[in-house]
C-alpha cells in the first residue's frame, strides 16, 4: 500500500511542479467553457443582404424596413439592378440577394399576387439555409399585413386556419446556453482525461523512466492505479469548476441532483482514462499519442450530439454513436441539468458506461502486459 501511496505522491508532485500543465488543467477548460458557449450559437445573425429593387415603391420601402429592423439582416447593398447585387455576393460582401421586380406594388394591389426572387450564397450552408428561412418568414409576415389591409375577407374564410402554439419543455426560452454549456463541459472533461493520461504515460516511455520502473518489482496494477487515480481526482475537480461556472457564470440552475452527475462522471472518467491508457499502450511517442487521441476525440465529439442532434444523423451513424462514450455523458449531463432526471432514468447509461470502463481498461492492461 505504501508503494501506491508514494506513487500517487510522486504523480501529484510532478503535476503540481509543472506550471504549464496546471494552467492547462485548470485554466484552459474554464476559459473554454466561458468562451465556447458564447460563440457556438445556433442563431444566425448578421446576415448580409443585398437588395435589387426595380420597383422603388412605398411597399418595397416598407418591406426593406421590416427586413432591416428584424435584427437578423444587415443591408450591405441597395441597388436597382440584379447584376450589381449578384456582384456583391461574388465579392463575398453579401450572403443573400433579394430581387424585387418592377411594378411589384402595382401587381400586388391590382392582381392580388406578386413574386419576388431570393438568391442565396450557399458557401456557408447553415447561414444560407437559415437566412433564406428568416427572410421568407419576414416577407410572409409582411404579406399577411398588407393582405389584411387590402383584401376583404369573406364571412367564412376560404380555408380553415389551424393555430399552432408551441411550448418548449425543459428549456422554455429555448436558450441554447442551457444545452450547450453542460455539453461543452462534458466534452472538455473527455478531452482532458484522455489527453492527460495518454501523454503522461507515453512521456514516461519517451524519457525512458518506464524502462527503469519495469525492472523494479513494482506491480503493474500499482503503476496503472498510480497513473489513473491522480487524473481521476483532477477530472472531478475540473468538473466542479465547470459546474461553478455553469451555476454562477451562466446562471443555469440544474433541475436535477448534481450528485447523480458526479456519480456518473466518476464512472465515466474511469472509462475515458482507460481510453487514454489504451492509447498510451499503442503509442511510442507523445506525438503519436497526441494524434491518435485527437482523431478519436474528434469523432467522439462530432458524433456526440454536442452540435448536431444524434437523432438527425443517418441510422448507421446512430448505431455507431452507441459506441461513443462521450455521447452518453453529454446526454446524462443534459438530462440531469435540464430535465432533472433521476438515477432510474439514467440507469442504462450507467450500465453502458461501466461496460466501457471495464472493456477499455482491460484491453489497455492486457496490451500493456503484452508489450512489456
Amino acid at each position: 500500500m505504501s508503494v501506491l501511496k508514494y506513487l500517487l505522491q510522486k504523480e501529484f508532485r510532478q503535476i503540481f511542479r509543472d506550471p504549464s500543465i496546471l494552467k492547462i488543467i485548470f485554466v484552459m477548460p474554464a476559459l473554454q467553457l466561458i468562451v465556447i458557449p458564447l460563440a457556438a450559437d445556433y442563431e444566425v445573425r448578421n446576415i448580409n443582404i443585398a437588395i435589387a429593387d426595380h420597383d422603388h415603391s412605398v411597399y418595397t420601402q416598407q418591406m426593406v424596413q421590416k427586413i432591416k429592423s428584424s435584427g437578423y439582416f444587415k443591408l450591405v447593398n441597395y441597388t436597382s439592378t440584379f447584376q450589381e447585387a449578384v456582384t456583391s455576393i461574388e465579392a463575398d460582401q453579401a450572403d443573400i440577394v433579394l430581387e424585387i421586380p418592377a411594378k411589384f406594388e402595382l401587381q400586388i394591389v391590382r392582381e392580388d399576387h406578386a413574386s419576388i426572387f431570393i438568391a442565396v450564397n450557399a458557401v456557408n450552408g447553415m447561414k444560407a439555409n437559415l437566412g433564406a428561412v428568416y427572410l421568407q418568414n419576414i416577407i410572409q409576415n409582411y404579406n399577411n399585413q398588407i393582405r389584411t389591409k387590402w383584401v376583404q375577407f369573406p364571412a367564412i374564410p376560404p380555408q380553415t386556419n389551424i393555430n399552432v402554439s408551441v411550448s418548449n419543455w425543459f428549456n422554455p426560452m429555448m436558450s441554447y446556453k442551457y444545452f450547450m454549456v453542460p455539453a461543452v463541459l462534458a466534452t472538455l472533461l473527455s478531452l482532458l482525461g484522455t489527453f492527460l493520461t495518454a501523454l503522461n504515460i507515453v512521456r514516461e516511455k519517451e524519457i525512458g523512466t518506464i524502462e527503469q520502473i519495469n525492472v523494479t518489482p513494482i506491480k503493474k496494477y500499482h503503476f496503472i492505479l498510480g497513473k489513473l487515480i491522480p487524473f481521476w481526482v483532477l477530472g472531478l475537480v475540473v468538473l466542479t469548476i465547470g459546474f461553478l461556472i455553469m451555476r454562477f457564470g451562466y446562471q443555469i440552475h440544474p433541475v436535477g441532483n448534481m450528485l447523480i452527475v458526479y456519480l456518473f462522471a466518476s464512472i465515466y472518467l474511469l472509462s475515458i482514462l482507460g481510453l487514454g491508457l489504451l492509447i498510451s499502450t499503442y503509442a511510442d511517442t507523445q506525438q503519436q499519442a497526441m494524434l491518435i487521441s485527437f482523431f478519436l476525440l474528434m469523432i467522439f465529439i462530432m458524433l456526440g450530439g454536442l452540435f448536431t442532434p444524434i437523432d438527425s444523423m443517418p441510422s448507421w451513424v446512430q448505431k455507431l454513436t452507441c459506441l461513443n462514450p462521450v455521447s452518453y455523458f453529454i446526454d446524462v449531463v443534459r438530462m440531469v441539468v435540464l430535465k432533472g432526471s433521476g438515477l432510474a432514468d439514467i440507469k442504462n447509461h450507467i450500465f453502458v458506461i461501466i461496460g466501457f470502463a471495464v472493456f477499455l481498461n482491460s484491453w489497455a492492461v492486457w496490451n500493456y502486459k503484452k508489450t512489456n
Partner: protein
Amino acid sequence: MQAVIVEHIVKKYQVEKSEVIALKDVSFEVAKGELFGVVGPDGSGKTSLFRVLTTLLFADSGAAKIDGYDVVKDYKIIRKKLGYMPGRFSLYQDLSVEENLTFFATIFNTTIEENYDLIKEIYQQIEPFKKRRAGMLSGGMKQKLALCCALIHKPSVLILDEPTTGVDAVSRKEFWEMLQRFKRQDITILVSTPYMDEASMCDRVALLQNGQILAIDKPANINQQFSHPLWAVQASNMYELLKKLKDWQAVYSCYSFGEFYHVVMKLDATGGKEIQAYLSEQGFQNVEVKQIAANIEDSFMALMNTTHD
C-alpha cells in the same frame, strides 16, 4: 555458482521486412563478484543483450539465468535482485535528487537509510544538490544519481549499459574506480562500453561484434593472442602515408590511433628499419617508427578483421 549464465541467446528484429539479427548465439558466464565488460562498437548488440538479461526483452531462443533464476520464468524474483542503469538517463527530470532516490527506494520496498552504506561514497558527492531537480544536474552528476538509484536496493547483480558514454574523462576514471569498490562488496557487475580503453579495467571482457562474441578472456590474455608484429608509424604527410601503407603488400592492416598509425605487418621478418626505409623511398619525411605492444583496441581490430575475412 555463477552469477550470470547466458546460453545460446538469439534475438532477431524485424526492420522494414528484412530481418536483423541482433544477437547470434551468445553464450558466456560471469562469476559472482566479477566485473565483466561487454565491449563492442555501436550496434553490436550490447543493449539487446542487457535488455534480455534485465527481463525487458524476450530472446527468440536460448536461456539466461541470473543468480540461478531464469529471466523469463522467474522475472519477478530477478527484478528484486537486479540493479539496472540504462544507457540513457532515465530518471524523473522534474523530481529532485532526493525524491528520485526515495522513489526508487520505496518501490523496492526499502529506504535510503537501509542501504546508505553502499551508496554513501557516491551520494555524498551529489548530496549538496539533493534539492535540485534531476534535469538540472550536470552529466556526471546525473550518472552518479542513476547509479545510486540502481544500487539503492542492494542488488546482487548490477547491469550498466554504456554508463560512461557522454561523460568526461575525469568522471569516467572516477566511475571505474567506484565500480572496483562495489566489486569488493560481492556485487557482480556487467558493464558495456564502446570504449576499448575501459575494457582493460574489467576482470574479463567479451568482445562483441554484429551480435557475435569474438573473444572472452582477461584483457591481458586477449592482448597476448595478438600474434602479428605491431608498429606505430608517424610522418609529416599523414594522409598520403595511410594510402601508401594500405597499398603496401607487407602490411596486414593499418588504422589511425591518436597521432600515430598502428600498422600490423604480415611478415615477422619485417623490422622497423625496413618500414623506415620503404617509407623514405616513397618520399616521406620525418618518418618515425617504433614497435609497440598490442592494447585491447589493437586486439579488437585484429579480431574484427579475422571475422571479416
